[in-house]
């Protein structure tokens, strides 16, 4: 195997590879941030909402989580143009990943909120806090502690899922890799390189998650 040719090709294509990695970062970041905001709203609606709020939120989570991400990406891309929203591939992909992320965050938050005891809400009411206040000062900080490790896992999933945007033509890291391969036919080497880059990104996120998880760990969890 000619490794010097491979290294030469990596150097020649370094700008494309860096650009692809940047797109991967950008689209993952958008999906994680926007998805988290939307997911928090859905998580609250599904846990504390009244029926007209809870049902649509539950339905949203079940529908999105029952659909493969690839189908979600393809559907968002094709359907958005069919109904007249002319989204670029990048926008459609980011939207699909955001919807996907929101359903996960919603479910994670629901799990965390439901593990908190009901008495805490009552205690908050007793000292005269509004629901906003109870959520902001009592529930959310505790839920964050339980939800954070799973949330980090979801972030890793988003980076992994961003590879699917290559199918609709977003030139992120994987599609860039495929374009380079179509010029030099170094299939194995360049897929391996892409794998290493993805691994490093995901591994780094995982380690940060572990670190934060350790910092937040409670010495004992007192059940009330």
């Amino acid at each position: 195997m000619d490794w010097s040719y491979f290294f030469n090709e990596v150097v020649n294509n370094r700008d494309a590879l860096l650009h692809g990695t940047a797109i991967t970062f950008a689209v993952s970041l958008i999906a994680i941030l926007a998805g988290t905001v939307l997911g928090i709203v859905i998580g609250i609606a599904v846990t504390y909402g009244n029926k007209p709020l809870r049902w649509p939120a539950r339905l949203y989570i079940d529908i999105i989580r029952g659909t493969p991400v690839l189908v979600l990406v393809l559907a968002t891309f094709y359907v958005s143009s069919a109904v007249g929203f002319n989204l670029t591939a990048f926008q459609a992909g980011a939207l699909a990943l955001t919807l996907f992320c929101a359903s996960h965050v919603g479910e994670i938050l629901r799990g965390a909120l439901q593990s908190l005891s009901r008495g805490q809400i009552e205690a908050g009411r007793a000292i005269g806090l509004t629901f906003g206040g109870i959520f902001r000062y009592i529930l959310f900080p505790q839920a964050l502690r339980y939800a954070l490790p799973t949330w980090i896992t979801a972030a890793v999933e988003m980076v992994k899922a961003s590879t699917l945007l290559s199918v609709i033509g977003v030139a992120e890291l994987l599609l860039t890799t495929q374009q380079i391969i179509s010029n030099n036919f170094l299939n194995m080497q360049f897929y391996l390189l892409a794998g290493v880059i993805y691994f490093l990104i995901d591994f780094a996120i995982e380690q940060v998650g572990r670190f934060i998880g350790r910092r937040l760990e409670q010495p004992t969890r007192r059940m009330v």
Partner: protein
Amino acid sequence: MNYHFNFAPIFDQWPILLSGIGLGLLLALVSIAIGSALGLVVAFASRAPNRWLRSLAFTWISILRNLPILVIVLFLFFGMPQLGLSLDKITSFIVALSLYASAYMAEVFRGGLLSVPQGLIEAGQAIGLTSFRIKRYIVLPIMFRNALPAFGNNFISLFKDTSLAATIAVPELTFYARKINSETFRVIEVWLVASLLYIVCCYAITLVLRAMEKRLVLEKT
């Protein structure tokens, strides 16, 4: 929005769509079977007395869990022939999905192993069971029972991941959905039907697994 719904061109292809979802289920079943067997070995290795065996197991889990499944699929299908290992697309996809599953199943089984009370293992030693028999009659049954809910979630994930086989032209549901999409331009209908089929299947799997759990999991007293 003036879009006129017309489901007829999609339902004309109904048998093809069903065959696609059948293939997806088959791919997921085969992959979870191989992945579980491999994952069980990795889980035991991660608890082995030998330090090297343990770090090998954790490296395996960490690498496969942090790689996008699409990269694994493409690497095996397009990259391996360069090393002289050409597999047809279905076999190559099954290998990819099984490897991916093995890392997740190893985590599931590792959690299951940790949940077996030490006292039961000691009880086995006290009545003179060999270490193989302790594993066979005490550790494994309890581990499988505890691992069942997580096993179910992984199976559903894998079933959804079979949609990626479309990228290497394995004729499963997503592959046919894309084909019908480009042939008939019934864009909304085809993606609606495809997602619904996936959702219904996932829901059906959940129901089957819940029934299994009810039979197998002991009531907590």
